[in-house]
C-alpha cells in the first residue's frame, strides 16, 4: 500500500472535514463518489474514511434496535463496497462494524434473556466443552491465538473476552463472548459465501445433528438471530429492553472508536516486533513505499544497523517510493487528518544504507538478500495477498533463492474473501503512466497494460506479521474468522 500520496490525501481530509457538516446521506454519497473516482484509494485511507462514516451513520441512527442498526450498516456498506469492490478494506471495516453491533446486541440479549433462558439451555456446547475437558482430563485447547493482543481484540469486541472458554463445537467467528453467543454457525471460518446461499445451520461438524429449526429439543443449539426461542423473550422484556437499547448505540460507537484507534496504532503495533525479525547486518529488500514497512524498519534502525534494498515499483508507485526514501514520511498537506501519519526521518538519516533499485534488479540481488518485507493491499483468507504490481515477481524470486518473505499487514487488511478468481482482484491502472499519451502512434497501435496489483500466492509467503503478532499463512484463516461474523461475509453484492 502506498503511503499517503499528495493529491489523494486532500480527498480523504476534505471528506473527513465534510463529515462534520454534511448530513449522513450526502456523506455516504460523497464517499461513494470519492471511491468510484479513486480519489480515496489504497487500504488505509479507505479504512479510515469508512470507519469515520460508519461512526456517523451509527450516531445518527434513530432506531435503537440492533437489528435495524445492522440493517442500516449493511445497506450503507453494500453501497460502499459496490462503489469500489477492489478496495477490500472498505468491506473489511463494514464487517468489523457489523461485528461490533452484533457483539453488543448479543451481550444485551444475554443480559435480558439469561435469567430464565440460561437454565433451560444447560446443554450449550460451550459448557459441553468444559465438562468434556474436565472429564477427559485434557488440557483445554484454546482456539484463540496466544498472540492476540488485547488491544485489537478489544477494538473489535470490547469486553467479555473469555479466551479459555472457546466453545468446542462452534467455529465461532468471534474470539470472545460468552458461551451462549457461540452457537452461531461456524466452520465456515475460511469461507466465502460468494453465492447468495446462506449457510445452513451448520454449527460445526456436529451441525448435522442439530435439531430442526422449530426448536423442538433443548438439546439442539438454538440458531442465532432469528431464533424463535429468543424472540419471544425479547418481546416480553421489550419495555425493559428499550432502555438498554440506548446503551447499544453508545457501546457500538465506542466499539467503532476503538476500531479507529486500532487503525491509528496499527503500524506501531506491527513495528513492535521489528527487533524480533531484523538483526544486524541484514540485507533487507522491500518494495514500493508503505507506511507500515517504513515504520517497521525505522523501529529496527533505532537499535540495529542493516541495509535496505528498495525496489521502486515503477510505474505506479515509484515517485512515492523515491519521496519516501529521500524524505522519510513527511506528513503531507492535510493538517487536520487524524494523527495517523506521524512524521519520521528517512532511514538514511538514521545511518541505514538504502540502495534504490529498479524492480528488474530484484532477481540479481536476491541471492544476497536475507529477508523480503512486503506490504499488501489486501490479505485474503487463504493466506494469499494482493499487493502492488511487481510483488509477485519479488516473492517468486525470493522463493527461488529460499529467501523468507515477510508480509506486514494490519488486521484491517485481512479480508474474508476467498480468491475464486484471482484475475478479478487485479486492477488495471492508467496506461499513461507507462507510455505518455503524447506518443500518439504508440498509444494507438500498441495495447498498453498497466496492472496496479499482483496476486501473490500463499505458498510464496513465509510469515505474516499483523498487529496481533506473527503467524503462518496457514493460520490466517483463524484470524480472519476471529474478526468477521459469518453472517457478514456475504455483504458483497458483486457476486450474485
Amino acid at each position, binding site marked *: 500500500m502506498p503511503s499517503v500520496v499528495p493529491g489523494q490525501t486532500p480527498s480523504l481530509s476534505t471528506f473527513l472535514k465534510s463529515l462534520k457538516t454534511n448530513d449522513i446521506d450526502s456523506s455516504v454519497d460523497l464517499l461513494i463518489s470519492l471511491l468510484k473516482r479513486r480519489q480515496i484509494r489504497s487500504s488505509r485511507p479507505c479504512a479510515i474514511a469508512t470507519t469515520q462514516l460508519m461512526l456517523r451513520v451509527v450516531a445518527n441512527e434513530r432506531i435503537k434496535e440492533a437489528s435495524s442498526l445492522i440493517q442500516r450498516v449493511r445497506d450503507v456498506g453494500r453501497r460502499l463496497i459496490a462503489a469500489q469492490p477492489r478496495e477490500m478494506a472498505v468491506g473489511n471495516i463494514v464487517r468489523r462494524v457489523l461485528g461490533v453491533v452484533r457483539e453488543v446486541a448479543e451481550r444485551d440479549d444475554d443480559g435480558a434473556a439469561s435469567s430464565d433462558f440460561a437454565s433451560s439451555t444447560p446443554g450449550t456446547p460451550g459448557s459441553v466443552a468444559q465438562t468434556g475437558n474436565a472429564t477427559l482430563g485434557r488440557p483445554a485447547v484454546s482456539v484463540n491465538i496466544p498472540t492476540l493482543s488485547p488491544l485489537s481484540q478489544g477494538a473489535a469486541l470490547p469486553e467479555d473476552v473469555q479466551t479459555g472458554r472457546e466453545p468446542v463445537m462452534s467455529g465461532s467467528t468471534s474470539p470472545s463472548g460468552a458461551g451462549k453467543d457461540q452457537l452461531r454457525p461456524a466452520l465456515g471460518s475460511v469461507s466465502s459465501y460468494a453465492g447468495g446461499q446462506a449457510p445452513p445451520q451448520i454449527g460445526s461438524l456436529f451441525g448435522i445433528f442439530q435439531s430442526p429449526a422449530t426448536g423442538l429439543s433443548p438439546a439442539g443449539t438454538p440458531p442465532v438471530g432469528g431464533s424463535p426461542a429468543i424472540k419471544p423473550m425479547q418481546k416480553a422484556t421489550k419495555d425493559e429492553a428499550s432502555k438498554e437499547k440506548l446503551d447499544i448505540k453508545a457501546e457500538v460507537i465506542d466499539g467503532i472508536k476503538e476500531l479507529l484507534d486500532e487503525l491509528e496504532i496499527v503500524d506501531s503495533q506491527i513495528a513492535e516486533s521489528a527487533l524480533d525479525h531484523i538483526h544486524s547486518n541484514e540485507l533487507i529488500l522491500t518494495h514500493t513505499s508503505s507506511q507500515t514497512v517504513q515504520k517497521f524498519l525505522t523501529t529496527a534502525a533505532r537499535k540495529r544497523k542493516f541495509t535496505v534494498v528498495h525496489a521502486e515499483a515503477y*510505474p505506479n508507485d515509484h515517485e512515492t517510493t523515491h519521496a519516501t526514501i529521500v524524505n522519510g514520511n513527511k506528513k503531507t498537506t492535510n493538517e487536520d487528518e487524524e494523527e495517523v501519519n506521524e512524521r519520521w526521518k528517512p532511514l538514511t538519516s538514521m545511518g541505514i544504507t538504502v540502495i534504490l533499485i529498479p524492480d528488474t534488479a530484484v532477481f540479481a540481488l536476491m*541471492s544476497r538478500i536475507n529477508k523480503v518485507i512486503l506490504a499488501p493491499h489486501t490479505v485474503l483468507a487463504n493466506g494469499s495477498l494482493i499487493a502492488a504490481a511487481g510483488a509477485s515477481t519479488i516473492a517468486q524470486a525470493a522463493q527461488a533463492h529460499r529467501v523468507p518473505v515477510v508480509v506486514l499487514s494490519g488486521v484491517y487488511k485481512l479480508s474474508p474473501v476467498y480468491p475464486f478468481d484471482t484475475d478479478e482482484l487485479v486492477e488495471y491502472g492508467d496506461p499513461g503512466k507507462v507510455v505518455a499519451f503524447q506518443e500518439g502512434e504508440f498509444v494507438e*497501435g500498441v*495495447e498498453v497494460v*498497466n496492472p496496479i496489483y*499482483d496476486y501473490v500466492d500463499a505458498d510464496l509467503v513465509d510469515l505474516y506479521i499483523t498487529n496481533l503478532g506473527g503467524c503462518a499463512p496457514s493460520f490466517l484463516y483463524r484470524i480472519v474468522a476471529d474478526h468477521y461474523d459469518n453472517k457478514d461475509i456475504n455483504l458483497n453484492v458483486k457476486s450474485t
Partner: protein
Amino acid sequence: MPDANKDQSPKEQPKDGDSSLSPAELKKRAKAEKQARRAAEKEQRGAGGAGGAEASSSATPQANGGPREVKQGQGQKQHQKGGQPPQQQQQQQQQQQPYHRRSGSQGAQQMPVREKPGKAVAGAGKQGKKEGSKQVELFSHLYTHPRRTTFEGVSKDVHPSVLAFGFKMASYEICGSSARCVAMLLAFKDAIQAYTTPTGTSLARHMTSHHLSPQIEFLKTCRAISESMGNAIRWLKKLIVEIDPNTAEQEAKDYLCEHIGRFIQERIMITDTAIAESAAQQIKPGSVVLTFAKSSIVEKTILEAHEAGTPFRVMVVDSRPLFEGKRLATSLMRVGLEVEYVPFSGLAHAVKDATVVLLGAHAMLSNGRLQSRIGTASVALQAHRAAIPVIVCCESVKFSEKVALDSIVLNEVAPSEELLTPSSLATAHAKKEGEDDEGDKASKNAKTLADWRDISNLQILNLMYDVTPAEYISMIVCEYGSLPPSSVPVVHRLANEGGIAA
C-alpha cells in the same frame, strides 16, 4: 541483446556516425573541454591506472596479453579517473551528441535543465570522497571508473571511427551485444586501413600490440566490452598473428578487412537469419509470444513468423531505464502485429497469457546460464513456474567460456543517474512548488531523488545484466540448431575456439 540501431544495417553505422558527429568536430570539442577541466583532471590523475587495468582484465580475462602490455605503457594518461560528476558529464555529452539515443525516451533532455547550475560545480569538489559511499559495496568490483564521455586523456592512436563508436556505445546509441560487435569490427576496419607498419617490424607482430590495443583499451573505458566483442577481438588477433610476415602491408590490411567483413556476414548476419528462421518455427498459430526489452534477433524471429503468415500476438515487457522494448513494440506494431506493452511490474499479468517466451542474450555462459538485460531472469523464472517454454535466441559468437552462479560477480554497473527519471524530477519539483503555495514550510527543504549524492547512505544501483539459471531455459536456438543449456560449452568450443569462421 538490445540493439539501438536495429533498423539500420550495421554497415551503415559508420556513415551515420559521420553525419551525426564527425571526428573533426569531436576533436575540436575535446580540446575545449580539456582546457576547461585541466585542473580537475590533475587532482584525480593519480588514481587512474590500477582501476583501469582491473577493468580490462575483468572484462576480458581471456584476452591475450596485448592490451595489458599497452596499458602499462600508456595507461597512465589514458585512464583518467572520473574527475567530473557524472551528471555534469552526461549533460555535456548530451549537448554534444544531438543523436543521443536516450533523448528518445520521454523528456530525457529535460534532465540537464533541471540541474541547478551551481550543483555540478559543488559536486566536483566533493566527488572524490563521496564516490565511495555512493557505490554499492556488494558491487564494488564493478565500479572501475565512470564511463568515458569526454576526450580527456584519449590516446592519440585511437582512430576517429573507433572514437565515434566508443561514445555511441557509452550512450547506448549503439546497444546490444551483436550490434556492438558489428560496429566495433567496422570501426576496426577503418583503423586497420589507417595503420602503417613501422620499419623494422612486421604487421603481424606489431599491429596487435601497438595499434589495435589502444583502440580496445579506449573502448573499454567507454563501456565494458561484451562477450561477443571479446570473441571477435580474440578472433581478429589470431587472424593478425597468423599473417605471413612477408605479406605486403596493403595486401595484409585488405586481407584482414575482407575477413572482418566475412566474419560479420557469417557469424552475425547470416546466422541471425538462420536463427530467426529456426526460432520462428516455435511461434505457432495462436501463440502469444512474450519477450523482454529488445533483442534484434528476437525481433527478427517475430517478423519472420509474421511474414510467414502465422497469426499470433506479442507481449513486450519493458523496463527502466532504457525502455528498449518500446522500440521493439513500435517496430512490431508498424508491421501490423497485435502488440501488448507491459511494464516490468505487470510481468505476472503478461506471463498469465503467454504461450512462449523468446529472449535474447548478452552472453551464454558455459554453465548453461544466460547473461542478459537485467530483469530477464525474473521473466524466465515466472515463465518457468507457469510451465511456459523459455527460448533463448543467441548467436554462437555470444557464447562464452565463463561461468557464473549469480549476477553479482559478472556484471556491469551503469551510471546511477540514468535512473533519475525526468518525470520524477519534474514531479518532485512540482510538488515542492505546490507545497510552497500552501505555505508548508517544512516541505521547502524536502529533497528529491536528484539530490541523491547529497544524501548520505543513499545509493542507487543501476545494474545492466542478470544471470538466468539454466533450469529456467527450455531451449537455446543458435546457428548450430536448438540446444539444451548444457550444450553451451560444446558450441562454444566448436565456434569460438575451433577457429571455424573466416
